[in-house]
Structures are given as C-alpha cells and as structure tokens.
C-alpha cells in the first residue's frame, strides 16, 4: 500500500470520528421523543358552532385553497393580542404564477379576523434558496418549543406538482418569514429530491418537537413522517405506509407511542386509509381502512384535550359538496358523524384543517375550542369555531 492509500485510509478514520463528534448533542433524556397527549380519555361529542364565516381575502384575488391554522403559543410576541393565524395560498388560480401565501390573524379584542397580508411569495423563496421557483402551493404552519412559527410550503420546479419540493421557512420577526432550506425528502437518484408535498398540520411531541406528515406524489402516492426537533430541524424520516395510492396523511396520537395516520384514498375503494405505529413512529403498519368513505379528498384529524378524536372529511358519492365531522373515542375507534355543510352539486368545501385553541375563558376543566378551516368554493377560506359542552376531568 503506497502513501496516498495510507493517507486516504487515515482520512476515512478521521471522517468516522468527525461524524460522531459533530452528531453529539447533550442528552435530553428520552431516546425517542414521544407524542404529547392529554391524560383524559373520555370522548366528547356534544359541541356547537359558536362562530363561523369567511376569512378575509386579499383584495382582488379570486382563488384560494389549502388553508392551515396555528394557535399562537404563550411565548409568541403576538399571543396577548392574537389567538390564532390562518395561512393559505391565493392568486388568480391554483398553480398560477402569481400565487402567494396569504395570512390572517384572529384578534382577541375585536373577535374578528384581521385584514390579510402576504407572507411568502415565490420570488423571495427563490432568491433565498438561489433556485428559480415556478409555483408555490400548500402551506403548513407550526409553532416550535420557543413559540417561533415555522411554515412548510410546497414549491414546484420544472414539471408542475410532480416536481414539488417542501421549503421550510421560520419566523424572523412576528409574521415575517425567511427561508431555511428545501427539506431533503427523496434521493437525487432518481427523483432530484422532488415530488414531495405537505398538506396537514404536524403532531406535537413531548420534547417540543413535532412529526410533520408529508407525501410523495408522482403517479404513485404514499405518506411519509418527518420528525422535527424543538427548534424545527429535521431529525429523521419514516415511510408510514406500504400502499401506493394514499396521500396527505394526518396524524393523531392515541398514547405517547401509539399513533395513527389517516390518509386520503386515491384507489377505487374510496375509504379513509389507516396505518399505525406502536413505537413512536419508528415502524408503521397498514391496518386497512376506517369505516368512513373518502372521495379522494384531503382529511384532517385531531386528538382533543378531552381524549376523543375528531376527523373532518368529505364523503364518497357526494364528494366535496358535503363536509362531515366525525368524532370517536380514542380507542377503540367508533365514529359518530355529523354533517357540517350540505351543499349542492359543484359546491366545494374541502381541504379541512383542525386545531385546538384555548379561549380567554378556558380554564383547567373546560375543553379548548376547536377551530376548523376549509376551502370555500376555491374562492375563499372559511372557518368554524366549535365549543364543547363536556367538562374535562382534572388531571391528578
């Protein structure tokens, strides 16, 4: 063996050592972060709509779709005045070159949505990344352990939605976002790190991080879960299904380590697809379908503070002209469905998002309100505020 070969071997050894040193982090206790779940386990199906309407649209903009909601955490600078923020994409049409991400905040004092503002456009995203961006689409919002908001936004390259990437942005000042990176979600071989999209809100973890659901979509479709740490940095990714016709997973935690993913079904079966993990996301198994139909439309799930589950979805047959809200006990799953909107043919009430937002009057034994947002006729984003009549049992 000559000198270059010896040098190369020494370098390889140094590389292994460097990797271990650079990866080392002060231990935070739990080896695998678990889901942050409420201790209550009773289902509450007694709710009423206390507020509903349309979120104001930017002036002169005719199309809107794919909304996401985030509650301002107590550590956020706007928490004292604003309850939650909605983000959605808007422009002349879906996939239009003028599509931007719009946002509006719900004000505690006026009890109304503020005037919308543009928060992300494809030109600034492209400038920050050093990459030309053709279109932007679905946004997803999340608040990290420090209360800082993150946005995950679909951005397309050559090839339309099939060439989508997920761009990660963080808040630099309240509601001012700057690009961090394009998330690496598929290999350069063969896909040039493309064809992944984001749609539904992350599921919180006990360490302040979250699991962000994503999906691959180019002919075949499958869901993926990406674990984020408390600062929002990607930690790992896991495929959550062996199926190849399910997309837009939405996650709920039944216990700290037992989670479910419900997915939009693109197969002729037209049922909500279901997979689950028993080891906090390390391994996932397909467990068939829920007893709820799905016309190939996005679904949104929520584990409520009461312990029950809620799922917003459209039914097969009627499609997106009807929006349903199903509730179930945490385990076993047994759904009770209520019709929220019953429209007429060609109406569209789709792409729901569900989050819990504590009200000013929420106490330790009342359940936070649930806020639902959804696409209204592809022209605006609508919302409903749901209040529960069931007391929440005090924690021991």
């Amino acid at each position, binding site marked *: 063996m000559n000198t270059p070969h010896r040098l190369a071997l020494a370098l*390889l050894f140094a590389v292994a050592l460097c990797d271990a040193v650079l990866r080392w982090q002060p231990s935070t206790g739990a080896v695998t972060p678990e889901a942050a779940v409420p201790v209550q386990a009773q289902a509450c199906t007694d709710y009423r709509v206390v507020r509903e309407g349309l979120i104001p649209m930017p002036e002169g903009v005719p199309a809107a779709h794919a909304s996401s909601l985030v509650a301002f955490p107590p550590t956020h600078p706007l928490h004292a005045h604003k309850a939650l923020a909605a983000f959605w994409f808007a422009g002349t049409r879906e996939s239009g070159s003028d599509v931007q991400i719009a946002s509006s905040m719900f004000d505690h004092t006026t009890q109304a949505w503020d005037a919308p503002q543009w928060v992300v456009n494809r030109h600034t995203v492209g400038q920050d990344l050093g990459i030309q961006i053709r279109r932007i689409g679905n946004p997803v919002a999340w608040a990290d352990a420090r209360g800082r908001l993150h946005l995950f936004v679909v951005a397309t390259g050559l090839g339309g939605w099939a060439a989508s990437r997920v761009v990660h942005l963080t808040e630099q000042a309240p509601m001012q976002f700057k690009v961090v990176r394009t998330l690496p979600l*598929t290999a350069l071989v063969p896909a040039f790190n493309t064809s992944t999209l984001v749609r539904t809100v992350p599921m919180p973890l006990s360490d302040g991080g979250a699991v962000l659901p994503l999906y691959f979509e180019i002919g075949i479709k499958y869901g993926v879960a990406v674990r984020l740490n408390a600062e929002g940095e990607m930690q790992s990714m896991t495929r959550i299904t062996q199926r190849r016709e399910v997309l837009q997973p939405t996650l709920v935690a039944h216990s700290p380590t037992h989670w479910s993913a419900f997915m939009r079904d693109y197969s002729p079966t037209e049922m909500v697809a279901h997979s689950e993990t028993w080891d906090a996301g390390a391994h996932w198994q397909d467990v068939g379908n829920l007893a709820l139909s799905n016309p190939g439309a996005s679904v949104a799930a929520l584990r409520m503070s009461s312990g029950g589950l809620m799922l917003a979805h459209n039914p097969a047959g009627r499609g997106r002209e009807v929006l349903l809200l199903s509730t179930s006990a945490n385990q076993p799953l047994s759904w009770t469905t209520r019709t929220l909107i019953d429209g007429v043919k060609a109406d569209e009430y789709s792409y729901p998002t569900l989050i819990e937002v504590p009200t000013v009057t929420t106490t330790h034994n009342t359940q936070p309100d649930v806020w639902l947002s959804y696409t209204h006729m592809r022209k605006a984003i609508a919302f409903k505020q749901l209040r529960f009549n069931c007391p929440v049992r005090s924690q021991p």
Partner: protein
Amino acid sequence: MSWSDLTHAVLPQSVFLPLWVKLSWALVASAVVLRLTYRLKATVWPAAVVAVLMLLPRTDVLSGYLALAFQTPSVVLVVWALWCWADVIQLRDPVATTPTAVACLGVLLGWALVLDTLNVWPAFFNPQLYALGFASAGLWLVLAVTAAVLLWAHVAPRWALSAAAVLAVYVLLRLPTGNVWDALLDPFVWLALHVQLWRTWRAART
C-alpha cells in the same frame, strides 16, 4: 452519547446552500463546456466564461435554472468537474479512475434508491434506504466499503484521495442535502457509472 445521537439527521447550514448551488453548478457546467470545446480547440476561455457568468451576482440565474430542474449535483460530480479542470490545466489526458467494483456498487445503490423512492420494497423487507443515508449507519457502511476497496483492490491514488475528500466534505459540511447517498450519487453520476460498466463489459468481450 445515546443511540439517537447517531441516528438523527444533520443537515447543512442553510447559509451554505445558495453558495453551494451557485458554485457547484458553475464548476459542473464549466467542466462540461471544457470537455466539449477543448477537443475542438485547446483553450479554456469558453469554459472559464461560463464559470464566471454563473458566479457573477447578476447572471447567477443560470445556476438557479439548473437547480430548478436538477436541484444540486452530488459532491462526487463536483470532484469529477474539479479533476476535469485539473487535467486540462496540467495538460493530462482525462482518465476514469472509478474501480469497476465501485461503479457496480454505485449502479446497484442507484437502482435500490429507485425501488425505495417508488415504495416497492416487499412488506417484510423495507430498509427505508433513503432515510438510512441521514444516519451514521449509512455513512459507516460507505466508509467500510471504501476502506475495503482501498485495502483489497488496486485503485488509482487519485481515486483513493478523491473518495476520502468526498466523504470529508460530506461530514464537515453535510453538502448537498445532509444525506450521504446524495453526496455520492446524482442522476448524472449514476448514468456515467452505467456507461463505464457497459464499456468495461464491451472491452472484456473483445
């Protein structure tokens, strides 16, 4: 140190990414121009102009458009581009130094990543191959294979040092994506390895 320290992803610093896009595509595109034009006329000027155009602030949209279509090149492709420039400057003939065994492994890895991306692994065997590239285990696998090649195969010194340099750049900067497979393979490198194997096979037949 816990096991999770070695399995979590470490991504490149976001400040490096726009620089990497610009620099890597400038090197690769100029090397391609160099290889195409140098045969016609022994001058580096056309390639140098391409490199400068792709690095200047107002004309760097060229690298942005390449990234729009192809994201970023792998570190291996960038090292190939550097060798291309070095060969011309030092008046050497270009040579392919990738050992056939390594080319074979690269081609197989690429096909395995295709299966992984298309989610067609059988249910009883799902290696989550791309995700493995973020963990230390993926890097250690690559280090072990590289060390074995260095110890037991007769490889060119250039390849030995290049392999170590590629892995060092990956570990220190995590470029291009934080995933070791992306540092080693991109579709252009994968295609070139197919061509190399095909040529080796044809040469062996004759």
